[in-house]
């Protein structure tokens, strides 16, 4: 069957689908070797004070249910395989948010004998949130940036070099 992309119903269905994706984001949280600082901030983002459920963001246990993968920490040699497997278990469309300086560049763990490197050396990352640890406001802002770019129709990763040039990470 030929489906013409300019037909009205196709457009409507695409609109509804985009709306639903933007308004219902389920996240799965993966610690790839973090010191737990960023993990505590992610939990703080979910607490009543910041309450991300009003945007439809929810933490799910299973990667099969999730839309975005939140990775914290540098990728240790042990966690590398698990990170890849978790990423591959997620259904499309999926996005990756890397939280914290360590996940952006390796941070203070850069060059350690047991650390492989940053997250984007293992899986494609869409949004980098620098900070040690980033505040909940920064995490929410990062996810909102991802959403605005999805809305415009261009899922893009913020270039890691730009962040490092600005001297944040």
């Amino acid at each position, binding site marked *: 069957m030929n489906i013409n992309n300019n037909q009205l119903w196709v457009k409507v269905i695409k609109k509804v*689908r985009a709306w639903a994706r933007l*308004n*219902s984001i389920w996240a799965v949280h993966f610690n790839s070797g973090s010191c737990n600082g960023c993990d505590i901030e992610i939990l703080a983002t979910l607490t009543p004070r910041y309450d991300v*459920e*009003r945007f*439809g963001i929810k933490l799910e*246990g*299973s990667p099969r249910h999730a839309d975005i993968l939140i990775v914290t920490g540098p990728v240790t040699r042990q966690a590398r395989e698990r990170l890849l497997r978790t990423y591959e*278990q997620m259904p499309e*469309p999926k996005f990756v948010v890397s939280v914290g300086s360590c996940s952006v560049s390796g941070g203070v763990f850069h060059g350690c004998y047991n650390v492989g490197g940053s997250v984007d050396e293992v899986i494609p990352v869409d949004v980098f949130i620098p900070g040690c640890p980033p505040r909940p406001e920064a995490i929410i802002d990062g996810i909102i940036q991802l959403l605005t770019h999805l809305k415009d129709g261009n899922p893009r990763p913020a270039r890691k070099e730009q962040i490092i040039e600005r001297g944040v990470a």
Partner: protein
Amino acid sequence: MNTLTSFFSLLIFPAGLTLLLAGMFYDWFDRKLVARFQNRVGPRWFQPIADVIKLFAKEQITPGIKNPALFFGLPIVALSGALAAALYVPLLGFAPVHSFPGDLIVTIYLLSLLTICMGLAGWNTSSRFSLIGATRALTQVFAYEAPFLLALLGPAMAAGSWQIDVINDYARDHWFAISQPVGFIIALIGLMGKLELPPFDAPEAETEIVAGALTEYSGRGLAIFRIAKALELVVGITLVSAFYLGGLQGVVPFFVKTLAVLFLMTIFQVLLTRLRIDQTVGLWWRFGTILVLAQLLITILWKGGLL
């Protein structure tokens, strides 16, 4: 004409579209109330609809499974069970579409279908989390099913009929929540166990076994299971409030009574912490069943004119 009415009742009202929207609404109301109890703002009104549409638009992964036909068939069977159960209850305060003596038992069986399907779905995948979740879900069925049925039999015996419509009419003049308070509480808690709401959410305990029996489901299958659960919430609440809260006649009493029941269930949800699976089973068989059997005995004695 008759076929047309049947199709209408199956697809639009009371099963089908109306029930779907009601399910979404009750799901949202539950989440919003929990959020308010926790001093949060809570999700927006269209949240369950957005969730379901998003899940339908996602990829469905077929993991390493024993039987692909079961994997795709089980969500549909669960959903159709919940939809069929809606035909026998006074949804939105209107008389049930189909009614025959003994439809109470049929409805309860249809409501159990979801749990059975979830148990089979967990068994069907090779993930250890879903296997543990399935074991717990099926254990919990044996825990709450008997007390829940016995609790619903209390009003049925007092009304002298096992037909939901007749009991609903009889309950108009008899508030069983007052004359049979034990049965009311056990029916309420039994419904929470059926829906795997906290504190009876051991089968899908996020902190222990990821997402229970549905761990390996993604996309469409998960969406259908979620819809089935929302529908079961509506049908179960309708059943309990029709039996115990003076019957459901008219749209306004329906919403007032069912939302009051949901409010009570939400209070239990936020107040109590999760029980272990052995605690759940112990609670039901040591206290629930004994108490509700005592209640039934009293009802029988009163019915026989001995009290």
